[in-house]
C-alpha cells in the first residue's frame, strides 16, 4: 500500500485564492510548447508582429500579396509566437534555512512558496523544475509540465531537509551555464552571502536572457533581534559560535543587516531582478499575490 505523505506545505485554500491569477514572464520565454508567454521567435499565432522582406527559402504562403500589389515588392507577414514558460525553482536547503521563529522555519515557509508557485505554473500549462541546493545541487528536477512531474516536485520537497553550508552563487553560475533556453528563474533563499557575488550571479542569469525573481526569506526575529539575555549563537551552517549580549550589539547588528539588505535590493533593482522580501510571519498569500499581480501589471 502506498504511503500517504503529509504535505502541509500545500495550502489548498491559498491555491484556491491565487488560482485566478497567472504568473507572467517579464521577458521572452523559450518553451517547448505553445503557451501563454511571448516567444522571441515568430510563430503562427493570430497576433501580428511585423512585415519582413521576403528572402529565399521563406514559405511563399506567408507573402502578403496586398502589399505586393501596392508596392510590387515581396513582404512576408510575421506573427508573434506564444510559448510556454519554463520555471526553475531554485530552493536553498542550507542549514541557515532551518532557522525558525515564532511562525515556523524559513525552510518550511520557502517550501510552501515553492509548492504554491509550482502548482500555479503547472495549472497555467507552464513547466516547472526544482533545483534544491546547499553548497551543491542536492536535487535537480528539470522543468516539466505534467501533473505527474508536479507530484514528483512535491515528493522531492517533502523529502528535503535543510543542512550544510550555502554556495548560492556557485549554483546560480552553474545554472546560468546549464539552462540553454530563456527561462524564469525563481530563487528562494535567505541570501546570506556576499552581495556583490550574488549580484554577479544574477547578472550571469540575466545575460543568458533569463527572467530572475528572488524571494528573500528572512524571519522577523532575525530582523528585530530583540533577545534580552546573553545568547550563545550557534552557526546553523556549522561555523563557529559566538556569545554576545544582544542588547549590547543590537544596533550594530541591525545596521549591518540593513546595509546588506539595502545593497541586495539596490543590486536587484539595478539588474531588473524581481526582489521580494518574504517574512514567514506575514504569511505566503501576501507576498505571492503581490508577486503575481505586479507581474500581471507589468511592474518591474
Amino acid at each position, binding site marked *: 500500500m502506498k504511503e500517504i505523505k503529509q504535505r502541509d506545505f500545500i495550502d489548498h485554500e491559498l491555491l484556491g485564492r491565487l488560482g485566478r491569477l497567472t504568473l507572467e514572464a517579464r521577458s521572452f520565454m523559450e518553451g517547448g510548447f505553445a503557451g501563454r508567454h511571448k516567444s522571441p521567435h515568430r510563430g503562427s499565432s493570430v497576433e501580428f508582429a511585423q512585415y519582413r522582406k521576403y528572402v529565399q527559402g521563406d514559405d511563399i504562403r506567408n507573402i502578403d500579396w496586398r502589399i505586393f500589389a501596392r508596392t510590387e515588392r515581396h513582404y512576408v507577414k510575421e506573427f508573434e509566437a506564444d510559448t510556454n514558460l519554463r520555471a526553475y525553482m531554485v530552493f536553498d536547503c542550507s542549514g541557515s*534555512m532551518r532557522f525558525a521563529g515564532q511562525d515556523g522555519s524559513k525552510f518550511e515557509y520557502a517550501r510552501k512558496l515553492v509548492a504554491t508557485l509550482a502548482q500555479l505554473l503547472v495549472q497555467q500549462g507552464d513547466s516547472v523544475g526544482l533545483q534544491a541546493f546547499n553548497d551543491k545541487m542536492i536535487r535537480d528536477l528539470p522543468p516539466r509540465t505534467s501533473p505527474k512531474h508536479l507530484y514528483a516536485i512535491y515528493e522531492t520537497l517533502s523529502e528535503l531537509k535543510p543542512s550544510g553550508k550555502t554556495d548560492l552563487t556557485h549554483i546560480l553560475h552553474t545554472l546560468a551555464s546549464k539552462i540553454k533556453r530563456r527561462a524564469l528563474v525563481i530563487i528562494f533563499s535567505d541570501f546570506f552571502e556576499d552581495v556583490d557575488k550574488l549580484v554577479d550571479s544574477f547578472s550571469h542569469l540575466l545575460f543568458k536572457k533569463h527572467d530572475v525573481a528572488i524571494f528573500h526569506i528572512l524571519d522577523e526575529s532575525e530582523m528585530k533581534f530583540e533577545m534580552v539575555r*546573553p545568547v550563545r549563537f550557534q552557526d546553523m551552517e556549522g561555523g563557529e559560535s*559566538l556569545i554576545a549580549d544582544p542588547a549590547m550589539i*543590537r544596533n550594530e547588528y541591525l545596521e549591518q543587516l540593513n546595509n546588506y*539588505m539595502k545593497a541586495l535590493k539596490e543590486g536587484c533593482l539595478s539588474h531588473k531582478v524581481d526582489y521580494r522580501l518574504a517574512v514567514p510571519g506575514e504569511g505566503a498569500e501576501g507576498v505571492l499575490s503581490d508577486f503575481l499581480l505586479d507581474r500581471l501589471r507589468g511592474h518591474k
Partner: protein
Amino acid sequence: MTFLEPGLLAILLPFVALPIIIHFINRMRYTPMDWAAMEFLFRAKRSSTKFAKLREILILACRCLAILFLGLALARPLSGGWLGWAFSGSSDTVFIVLDRSNSMGVLDESGQKNKLEKSITMIKDSAKTKSQATKFVLVDSATGKITELESLESLDDSLLFGVSDSSVDMHTLLQTTYDYINSNNPGNCEIWMTGDLQQSNWKPDNTEWGTLNVDFKSLNSKINFRMLALSHRPDKNIAIRVNDVVRYSKNNKDYIDIAIRLTRNYTGKESVRVNLDLNKIETVREVSMTQEMLDYIHTVEVKNDDTGGFGSVTIPKDQNPGDNKYFFAYGSSMEKKTAVLSKGKYSKLLALAAAPLKGTNQSSVIIDENQIKSTVSDNCSLVIVENSKLSEQAEKDLLSFTEKGGQILLFPPLAAGSKVLNLVEASQVEKKSGEDDFPISTWDEFQGPLAKSRQGESLPVNKLYISARQVPSVSGQVMATFKDGKPFLSKFGHGKGAVYYCSSGIESDWSDLYKGGVLLPMINRLVSEGSKQYSSVVNENCRYDESLDKIEILAGDKAAAYKSLSAGIYNDADRILVLNRPLDEDGDSLVSEDTLEVIFSGLDFSMFNETQDSSKETMQSELFSLFTIFILLFLVVEGFLTLRKPQIELEGQK
C-alpha cells in the same frame, strides 16, 4: 568623613561588587540559540566591541557606585554636619569647652531639650567615631575646672549639674585650656567649644585675645578649634530681673521700692503675669507690655522695725526658663548720708540734691577738708567734691572711703595735668561761647548714674547745655560722651567703690547741670550705690566660689551642686547674699563668625552653626541628601546608558 554606623558600612560594602557578580553570572547563564545570520553578528560584535565594552563598564560602574553610596548613606555619614567635621581626623586629646551658662538653658521647640543637653548629646554621638585612645578633657565653663574624663559617659555628670546661673568667659576658659596643654603636652589636640555665641561670653574687644592667639600658635602640638554654635534664639522670650531694691522712709513710714524690669524679644501688646514673693507672701500682678522693655516699681510698705527680708519675682515659664525668676533682698532701714566738699556757691544746691526731701532717710552735710575723715566714717554714702583743691591727707581719706564701697562725685575745675585722688588727671579747660556748646550724644541708659528712671524714662542728658568742660586725659569707664567722643562722665573704680568724674562743672558758666534734671537723679543713684556698703544685703552675680558651698540657703535650688552657681538667697554669716544671673546673660547680641575668625586667625578654626532646632538626623542631613542625590544621579546615568537606541528601520520594512 566618618560614620555613625561603621559596622553597617562594613556589612554593606561587599554588596558593591554585586552588579559585577550578577553581570558575570548572567554572562555564564547564556541561552544557546541556532542562528542563521552569523556573519552580521560577527561584524556587529567587531564594530560594537569598543563602545559596547565602555558602555558596559560604565553601566556596571554606575550600578556599583549607586550601591556604594546607598551603603554610605545608610551608614550615616557625618561629614556634612558638626559631628562630621568635628570628629574628622585623629587626635590624641579632645578638649570639650562646655558652656553651661544661664542662656544655654534655652529649650528647643519641643520644650524637651535645652541647648546644654543638646550640645552634650551631639558631642557624645560624634565622639563614638573617635579612636579609643583619644583622651577627652572637659573644661567646664561654670566652675572653670578642667577634668580628664574617664569615659564620655562622664559628660552626663555635666547634665546632672545642668545649666548654671552664671555667665561664661570664653577667653578665660581657653586660657585655662592653653595652660593645661602647655604644661601637660597632650599631643595633637582638638578643642571643641560649645556655646550660644553670646557677645558677652566672648568679649571680642578683650585685647588679651591677641596674646592667647599667639600663645596657641607657639605650642608644639597641632591644635584644631571646632566651634559648635547653638545660636538660635527663642522665638518668644520674656526675661525678668530686679534692677534695684530701695528702702526708704517717707512720712515716718518705711517702704521698699522694687524696680522690676521685663524685657522681651518681640513687640505687641501683651499682659504678663508677674508673681512677687516677698517674705513668703505672694502677690500677683498683671502688667501690660507694649514695647520690648518695661520698667515698673512695685512698692511695698514694711514695718519700721523690719530688719530685712527677701523674695523673688517670677513670670510664667517660657522657652528660656533661666530668665523667668529673679531673687532680691532688702536690709534694715538706715540713713543715707552725703557729704558735700565744696567752696563754691552751689554747695548748698548740691547738698539739697543729695537730700531733696524732708522726712526721708537721706541727709546731706557741707563739710571742709578737715571733716572728711570723721564724716565718711559715719555712714556716709557719697562725697561730692566740687571746686576744691584736695590736700594729700584729704585724698588719702577719700580713697580709703572708696575702698570700702563709698562713692565720690568729682566736678571740675581741677588743676590741669595733676592727678586728683591718684585717679583722675584733667586736661585743659575748654570753653565755648554763645549758643555753641559741647553736646552730649551717648550715655549708658541701662546702668550707672545716668540710667533710665525706674519708670523707664530716659534722663535728659542730651539736653544739657555744656559751655565749658575739662575732660580727663585718661578716661576710666565712660558712662557718657560728648559728640566729639570725649567723656562727659567717667567712672574710676577703686576698691569696692568708685570715683565719678563729671567733665563739666555745675556753675552756670560751665553748664546748666544746676537745674537738676540730670544732677538730682545722678546724685541720688550714687547715694544709693554708696549706701550698699552699709547694707546687710549683698547682691552678686552667680559665679563659681568654692567658699560659698557650705552657706545656708534661704531661697532657691536647694539641690544645686554648686551654690555659688545657682541663683537664690543665701545666709552668709552676718549678711544676706543674693545671687542672680548676670545681666550679660539676658543680652541678645551674638558674636559673628567673622569676629571669631579674627580671634582665631592663623589657627585651624572652623565653626558649625546649629541655628535650627534640630535633631541628630538634620545634623547629617546635608551629606545624606548629597549621597541620595548621587544615588539618583548614578541610577539616571545607568538608565540612560541602558536605554535602547532608536531601532534602525530595516530596508525591507520601509
